[in-house]
């Protein structure tokens, strides 16, 4: 075996956390992760060390999550995230004047590579993603983590491209504000 099964067990909490973010349902998240771990254990020769073990396992998890999304599509559409919608709209209003000008320019975020070297940054990023309202968080993860394109997202969520782009803008804006508050602005 090209990997140690214990490595898999160590990964489990992180996998569950990723899955729960995407599916917003702990039971389904656990299912997806269990299916992933089974798939990895049942086909040990599939991991040929073309990438890190973690990347390989996450790749399988992404497929399982997509399957779950397709299966659960109808249930997900029944829940309307009204509070999230309202608070997103409020947030956008707060950042611009009525004439559409930005209220302030954020300070520069400095050297990206330096920031991306810090593990603590990714912990903060994860927290900011967790804080996104349900609908925006979901589409953001579909786009940026599952790496679905606009067409695929629109099919999965049954929304228009324009709709998707508006939601993604809100997600990115909210994320940007959170990172500014918790990371970039927090270091004096």
């Amino acid at each position, binding site marked *: 075996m090209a990997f140690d099964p214990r490595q898999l067990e160590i990964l489990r909490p992180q996998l569950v956390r990723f899955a729960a973010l995407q599916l917003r349902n702990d039971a389904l998240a656990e299912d997806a992760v269990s299916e992933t771990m089974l798939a990895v254990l049942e086909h040990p020769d599939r991991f040929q060390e073309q990438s890190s073990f973690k990347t390989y396992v996450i790749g399988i998890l992404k497929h399982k999550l997509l399957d779950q999304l397709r299966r659960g599509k109808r249930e997900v559409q029944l829940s309307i995230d009204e509070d999230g919608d309202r608070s997103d709209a409020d947030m956008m209003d707060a950042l611009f004047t009525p004439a559409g000008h930005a209220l302030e320019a*954020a300070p520069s*975020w400095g050297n990206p590579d330096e920031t991306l070297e810090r593990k603590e940054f990714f912990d903060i990023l*994860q927290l900011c993603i967790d804080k996104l309202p349900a609908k925006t968080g979901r589409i953001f993860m579909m786009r940026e*983590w599952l790496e679905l394109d606009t067409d695929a997202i629109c099919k999965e969520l049954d929304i228009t491209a*324009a709709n998707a782009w508006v939601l993604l*803008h809100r997600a990115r804006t909210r994320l*940007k504000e959170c*990172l500014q508050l918790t990371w970039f602005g927090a270091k004096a």
Partner: protein
Amino acid sequence: MLMQCLPSLSFTFMPYKRLIPHCRDTQQLLSQAQDSNLPPLTRARVRIHLWTCTACTRFSQQLAFMRQAMQRLGKD
């Protein structure tokens, strides 16, 4: 003379919008550029706005950074 700005319902109809988009529309378009190719004229209008707007230039950099960060999230 600037053209009348209609409420933004869709970012794919540009003819009746203002010639140079304001910050709110620019930032929406910058975000959209991460998901699909903007038409060349729209890109040009956004670029003109960016020439004189620090806030939106920063936002553009922040978008690029967040994308990079997401690509690294969960990978070692």
